[in-house]
């Protein structure tokens, strides 16, 4: 008999992140294979009311820690809550999204549970009753399949790789409120500073319009912002444009930036160096717009247009406006 699958359902404010539903869906799939339950954990402020929505993604029971002190991710507080729950329910597997919170929390939990963690997993499978995780290594050049020695198995899942899928009929999960006892801590989490009104984060975006050295300067990103806004996407950047100071590091896609996996990635004026490639190669569809027909990006883009970004991108924005207008 296997212990339940514990899934950390991360929220942003009082709403679950998309990656929380992805992790819940994967937890459900594993639970069916291992013939066990899915136990969700939601931590935050004002998260209590949304807890039942995890049932749509196959979660059987949800433990909720809802408190003012949990509004922002505090490593010591979150770790203690997750740890206490894990010790109580003895999970066989613990899944977390590989977001900044999940990546911080997973190793802390693992070390206190005297177990191991597989990070940034892109696939999980059960083989002979054992969990095998696939994770990229050497900047995505190879995929490692690893068997996890230790119990429970802790894994973080790369966002946008697993697909969130609703179960039919939806489950009405049992909800349990956790009392919040604050552990001794020498850290104070003070505030959250937002980078402006950006709606979506790059790692969770479905459509990314990205610009590189070919954009020529920070003022020219306006045409990418326009295209992204028409398509409901966000703007990313290559290392060249971040190093030049045109865009913030938080926008950088690639080896020293974010790893993204949107359904559509439009690379504008990006040559496609290996360091950029590893950050976006998992996109479902890649479109390249570049005036150099020899640019490496055309070697792995699904569709390419050879041309000047300053002509092609505004024309594409026009065309998309028409497309979204009539659909």
């Amino acid at each position, binding site marked *: 008999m296997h212990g339940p699958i514990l899934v950390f359902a991360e929220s*942003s404010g009082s709403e679950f992140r998309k990656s929380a539903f992805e992790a819940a869906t994967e937890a459900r799939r594993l639970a069916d294979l291992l013939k066990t339950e899915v136990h969700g954990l939601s931590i935050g402020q004002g998260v209590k009311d949304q807890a039942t929505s995890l049932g749509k993604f196959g979660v059987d029971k949800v433990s909720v820690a809802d408190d003012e002190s949990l509004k922002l991710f505090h*490593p*010591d507080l979150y*770790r203690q809550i997750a740890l206490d729950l894990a010790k109580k329910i003895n999970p066989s597997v613990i899944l977390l999204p590989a977001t*900044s*919170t999940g990546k*911080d929390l997973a190793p*802390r939990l*693992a*070390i*206190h549970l*005297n*177990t*191991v963690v597989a990070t940034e997993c892109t696939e999980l499978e059960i083989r002979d009753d054992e969990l*095998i995780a696939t994770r*990229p290594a050497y900047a995505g*050049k*190879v*995929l*490692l*399949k*690893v*068997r996890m*020695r*230790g119990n429970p198995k802790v894994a973080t899942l790369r966002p946008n790789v697993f697909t969130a899928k609703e179960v039919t009929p939806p489950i009405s999960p049992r909800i349990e409120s956790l009392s919040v006892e604050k552990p001794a801590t*020498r*850290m104070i*989490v*003070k*505030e*959250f*500073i*937002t980078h402006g009104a950006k709606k979506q*984060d790059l*790692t969770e975006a479905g459509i990314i319009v990205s610009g590189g050295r070919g954009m020529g300067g920070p003022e020219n990103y306006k045409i990418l912002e326009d295209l992204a806004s028409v398509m409901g996407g966000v703007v990313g950047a290559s290392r060249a444009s971040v190093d030049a100071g045109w865009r913030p*590091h*938080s926008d950088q896609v690639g080896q*020293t*930036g974010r790893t993204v996996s949107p359904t*559509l990635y439009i690379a504008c004026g990006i040559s496609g160096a290996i360091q950029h490639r590893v950050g976006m*190669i998992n996109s479902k569809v*890649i479109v390249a717009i570049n005036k150099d*027909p020899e640019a490496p990006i*055309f*070697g*792995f*883009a*699904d*569709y*390419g*247009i*050879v*041309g*000047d970004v300053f*002509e*092609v991108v505004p024309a*594409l924005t026009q*065309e*998309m406006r028409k*497309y979204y207008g009539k659909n």
Partner: protein
Amino acid sequence: MVAELLGIPCVTQVVKLDVSGAKALAHREVEGGAIVAEATLPSAFTAEKDLTIPRYASLRELVAARKKPILVKEPLHFPGVLEIVSVQYPPPRLPGRVLGKGVEAVPILVKVLHEEAKVI
């Protein structure tokens, strides 16, 4: 993990760090912004790109570095780890096709994204 074992605070993905006295104020890069956290020293911090600009050592320092003793320690073998079952290359991404040159290719792109790739 090391910080948890030592029982000291740890702030990850730090892009800005100010130390004053026994306290450090760190900016953690997260989705859509930064979280500001204050930790009492000693603490661990994991550095994100842009936290510092690496400086090149001077020739004098390079020469001095050669004389520094190197302490070699035996690694401890810990059994409870990830055991690699297989190593493989990711499926190759085949080159797609160039739809055309300049603005004339734009309507074709919208059409294939909708009809063929089905992503919009």
